[in-house]
């Protein structure tokens, strides 16, 4: 592939272009990230995510405070006010699930978790600061045992069948997979 002068020219151009490319990369290596002038989407995205987490914690802080103090019903009422303000926010559903679980309403807690996780899977992701995986896993484990007994005692009950579907959805999300 080096028959005539045009071939030689192309080879030379290739060599020059690659050499200059290597030189440019070596001379500017790492500057992109350090100066912050280039696109560092990952960092920007992480900052936005953590800012979101902070905002969520701030917005829902009063609810968490009431919940930690054992005032679950007051927390639920407070949360209801916030849920009306931010109806599409998954965090509200997850908190509602946690509160309802404490108040002895596991079926409704499961339904709230399903709503929340459908909106945002971070709540079953160990790596997310929003993760509530452990609490959700615990409820799913106990509910799965309980629902089997309830269905066996009430065959053909459509409400219990619907509840089983919700539990299975959560089990599937907790099992992981590529989502």
């Amino acid at each position, binding site marked *: 592939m080096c028959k005539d002068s045009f071939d030689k020219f192309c080879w030379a151009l290739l060599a020059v272009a690659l050499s200059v490319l290597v030189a440019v990369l070596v001379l500017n290596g790492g500057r992109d990230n350090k100066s912050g002038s280039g696109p560092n989407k990952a960092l920007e995205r992480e900052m936005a995510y953590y800012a979101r987490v902070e905002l969520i914690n701030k917005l829902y802080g009063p609810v968490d405070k009431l919940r930690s103090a054992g*005032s*679950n*019903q*007051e927390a*639920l*009422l*407070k949360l*209801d*006010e916030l849920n*009306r303000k931010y109806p599409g926010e998954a965090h509200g559903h997850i908190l*509602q699930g946690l509160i*309802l679980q404490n*108040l*002895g*309403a596991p*079926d*409704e807690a499961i*339904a709230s978790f399903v709503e929340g996780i459908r909106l945002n899977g971070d709540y079953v992701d160990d790596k997310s600061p929003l993760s509530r995986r452990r609490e959700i896993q615990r409820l799913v484990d106990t509910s799965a045992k309980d629902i089997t007994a*309830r269905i066996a*005692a*009430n065959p053909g*009950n*459509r*409400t*219990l069948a619907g509840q089983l579907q919700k539990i299975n959805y959560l089990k599937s999300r907790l099992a992981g997979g590529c989502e």
Partner: protein
Amino acid sequence: MKRGMCNRRFSRVLLLVCAILMLLLVAGCKGEGKRPVVKIGYMLCNSEEETMHRFKPLTSYLSEKVGVDFVMVPVDTNDFEKRFKNGEFAFTHTNSILYVILHENQGVELLASEKRGKFGPRTAGAIIARKGSGIEKLADIKGKRMAFGPMLAPTGYLAEYDLMLAAGINPENDLAHYTIPSGSFKHEKLIYGVVYGKYDVAAAPILDIENMTRDGKIAADDIVILAQSAPIPYCTFGSAKGTDPALVKKVKDALLNLKATDTGEVDGERLKVLKAAWVDGYVELPDSDYNVIRDMAKRVNMPPYQKY
């Protein structure tokens, strides 16, 4: 001759047109009065007017879906069992304690349970005080003025009475006095009564607290919850023992399949059934889920287990 034939042909055509018109008229009729009439007894919630307004679209929807003419019968809580016993209605819509009474005494069978509020087909009873009143825990209510809901209210009386007994407080002896507000909207009255200082504490259904905070009538911060019962089933549809099983199944299916978009006709207008009834839907709870109420009624010495 020709004219005679023509006349005959004309009268035949006229006859045919008349027959078609008659058919069309008959087809246009709804056939009212031909369908069986079945009555549903609705326990009055806050007032008769409110109950009728809420459940008219649902009753109309059931008539359309089931193919019988359902008629609403508004019934006072205290008269419910007597009127049911007299055979005034075949289907019942009551609160959960009244369902238990009818089930135990009259054999009423569970059809569907109503979903409303945060606890779905259940709700809880709470003992509340005004925030900042100095009453912070259940033990503080001794010697205070308390308001209860009506005696047959599962989350306005039964659950709270049971909570107090469990905490070692005898409502008959340990309070300054207790009262039940008169007239309609009793639950709202007693919650307002606490917030505005008429009562020190009250037995309030969580569902009413949820509704009043949502409507902005009170704020979540206005009250403190001293104790709260476990969630218990609430409003319930039932059917009289011996009702046609096919009819019962149709009613049950219609209730369980109700969606937010389903409508019923009231005075020529189509209204959304669930929205009008303030209900989120109907679910199929097993009768054993009502055992928690049976246990409460036994502890509190209330019907159907009352002992004198």
